[in-house]
C-alpha cells in the first residue's frame, strides 16, 4: 500500500487529470479527423459542383459535346473538339521537349554537378517553378513572342516549311509560344522529381557498373535509367497534368484561335485558356454551362492523370522499400 494513493484527495486529483487527458485526446483526435474529412469533402465538393454547374450543357449536348467541332455563341452551338485538340497538341509537344531536358537536368544534378554548386543549381531550377504563370505569360507575349516571331519562325518556315507543323507564316502569338511557355513550366517540376529518383539509386549498383568498366553514360543507361523507369514516367505524367491545366499563361500567348490544324505558328485555344478567356464575358447561360462542361472535361483528365501518377509513384517507392 502506497502512501500517495491512499489519500483520497490525491486520487481525486489523479482521476480528474485522467478525465481531462481522455477528453483532450478525444478532442484533438476528433478535431484533426474532422479537418481531414473536410479535405476529402472539398475534393468531392469541387467535382460535384463542377458537374452540377455544367448540367444544363451536359443534358443539352450530351457526350456529343466532346466530338463536336466549333464554338458558336450566336447560335448557341458548342463543342469541345477544337479545344481538346489544342490542349493535346500543346501539352504533348511541351512534354516532348521537356522530357529529355528534365531527365538531362536530373542526371546533371545527381551524377555530374560538382558538390559545391549542386544545391545552387538545383535551387535555381526549382525557382523557375516559383515564377507565377501570369509573369511568364507577360514575358511570353511581350518578349519571347516577338523574338520567336521575328527570328525563329521565319527560319523554321524557310528550312522546314514542308513539315505541316511549320507551314504558315510567322506570328507573335500562337501555339509555338504556348508550347515554349508550357515547357518552361513543366521542366522544373519533372526535373526535380527526376533528380530525387536518380539520387536514390543504390550506390552499390552504380559503382558495380563503373567497376565493370562502364563509362558514366553507360552506367546511366544500364543502371540508373532502367532502375528509375517507372518513377520517371510518373514524373512526366505529372508534368503533363500541369501542362494540360495551365490557363493564364496559355490564354495570354496562344491568341484565341479556332480550328483543328497542325500549324504551330497559327493561333489556337485550349480547354483551360477558353475558360479563362470567356467565363466572365459569357453571353448566355448555356454558354456559361458549356464553359463549365469544358472545366468538367479538364477535371476528369486531371483526376485521371494525377491519380495514375501518384499510384505509380507510391507503388514504386513501396517496391523499392520492400526490395532493400
Amino acid at each position, binding site marked *: 500500500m502506497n502512501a500517495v494513493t491512499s489519500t483520497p484527495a490525491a486520487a481525486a486529483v489523479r482521476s480528474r487529470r485522467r478525465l481531462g487527458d481522455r477528453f483532450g485526446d478525444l478532442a484533438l483526435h476528433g478535431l484533426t479527423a474532422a479537418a481531414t474529412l473536410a479535405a476529402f469533402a472539398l475534393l468531392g465538393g469541387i467535382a460535384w459542383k463542377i458537374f452540377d454547374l455544367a448540367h444544363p450543357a451536359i443534358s443539352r449536348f450530351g457526350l456529343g459535346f466532346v466530338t463536336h467541332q466549333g464554338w458558336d455563341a450566336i447560335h448557341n452551338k458548342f463543342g469541345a473538339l477544337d479545344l481538346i485538340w489544342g490542349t493535346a497538341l500543346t501539352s504533348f509537344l511541351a512534354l516532348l521537349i521537356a522530357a529529355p531536358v528534365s531527365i538531362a537536368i536530373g542526371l546533371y544534378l545527381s551524377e555530374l554537378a560538382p558538390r559545391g554548386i549542386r544545391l545552387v543549381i538545383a535551387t535555381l531550377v526549382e525557382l523557375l517553378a516559383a515564377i507565377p504563370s501570369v509573369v511568364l505569360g507577360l514575358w511570353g507575349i*511581350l518578349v519571347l513572342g516577338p523574338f520567336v516571331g521575328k527570328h525563329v519562325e521565319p527560319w523554321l518556315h524557310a528550312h522546314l516549311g514542308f513539315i505541316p507543323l511549320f507551314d504558315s507564316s510567322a506570328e507573335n502569338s500562337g501555339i509555338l509560344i504556348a508550347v515554349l511557355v508550357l515547357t518552361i513550366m513543366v521542366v522544373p517540376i519533372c526535373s526535380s522529381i527526376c533528380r530525387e529518383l536518380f539520387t536514390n539509386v543504390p550506390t552499390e549498383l552504380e559503382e558495380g557498373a563503373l567497376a565493370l568498366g562502364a563509362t558514366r553514360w553507360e552506367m546511366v543507361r544500364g543502371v540508373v535509367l532502367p532502375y528509375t523507369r517507372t518513377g520517371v514516367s510518373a514524373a512526366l505524367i505529372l508534368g503533363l497534368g500541369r501542362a494540360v491545366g495551365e490557363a493564364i499563361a496559355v490564354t495570354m500567348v496562344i491568341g484565341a484561335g479556332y480550328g483543328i490544324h497542325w500549324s504551330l505558328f497559327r493561333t489556337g485555344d485550349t480547354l483551360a485558356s477558353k475558360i479563362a478567356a470567356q467565363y466572365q464575358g459569357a453571353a448566355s447561360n448555356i454558354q456559361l454551362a458549356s464553359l463549365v462542361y469544358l472545366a468538367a472535361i479538364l477535371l476528369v483528365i486531371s483526376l485521371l492523370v494525377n491519380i495514375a501518377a501518384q499510384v505509380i509513384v507510391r507503388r514504386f517507392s513501396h517496391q523499392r522499400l520492400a526490395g532493400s
Partner: protein
Amino acid sequence: MAADAGRYTLTLSRRTKRRKAVNLLMQGIATLAALSAVAVLALVIASVAERGAGALSWDFFTKTAATFGESGGGVANALVGSLVLVALATAMALPVGVLIAIYVSEFAKPRIADASKLVLDVLNGLPSIIIGVFVYGLLVVGSGQAAWKGSFALAIIMLPLVARSTQEVLALVPATLREGALALGASRWRTVLGVVLPTSLGGILTGTVLAVARAAGETAPLLFVTSIAANTVTWDPRQPVLSIPVDIFALSESPDPADHARAWALALVLISFILVASLTARAALVRYRSRLER
C-alpha cells in the same frame, strides 16, 4: 612482332574512343540542359527587372490607377488587395492544414494516412482555373464578388501545400522525443501540442511561407471571384478587390504601352517578393532539417 606489339599497346582502341566520345557528348548535353534552365530563369528575371524598374516610383505604390485619359497613377489598390487576399487565405488554410497534418502523422492508421496524402496530392494537382470556377459557382453566383471569396479560393490552393509540408516536418520529429513525453506520463494531446508541434514550428512556418509565395502569384482562381477593375484602396474583405496577378493579366491585354510598363513594374514587385520569400524559406528549411536530423 608487329602483331604482338599491337595486342599489348596502351593506346585506346577505336571502340573505346567511341565510348568515351559518347560519354563526353552526353555529359555535355546534360550540362547544357541544366545551364539552359538557369539561363531561362536569368532571362525572365532580367527582362522583368529591366522593363519594370523604370515605372517604379513613390506614386506607383501609393496612388490608384489614373482615370481614363490621364497619365500617371499607381497600383496601391492591387497591392493592398493582394495583401488582404493572401493574409485571409493564410488564416483559413494554416490551421486546417496543420490539423490535417497532425491527424495524418499522429492519429491515422497507415491506410487512412495514405489515402489522405493521395487526396491532398490530387487536390494540389487540380488546375487552378477549376478552383476558380468552383468558388465562383459556390459563392459568387447570385451574391457578387468579395475579397474573402477570393481568399477562400486561394486557401484551397494553399491547403494541400501547408498540410503536406507540415506532415513531412512532423514525420521528422524524432520518435524518441514522443516516447520520452509519453513515458513521463503525458497524454497524447499534451505530447502533440507541447512537444511535437513546438519542435516542428520552424518547419511549419517555412512551409507556410512557400505556400504564401505560391498563392500570391495565382491568377486563375481569382479571375472570376474578385474584381478585375476595383479602383479603390480597401482593407474590407467584404468588398471586391483587385490583386497584383489579376492586374498584370488585365494590363497585359491593353493596347496601351503605358499599361504594359505598369504590368512589368507589378511583375517586378511580385517576383521580387516571391523569390525572396522562397529563397529565405528554402534556406531556413535546409538549416532546420539538418538540425532535426542531427
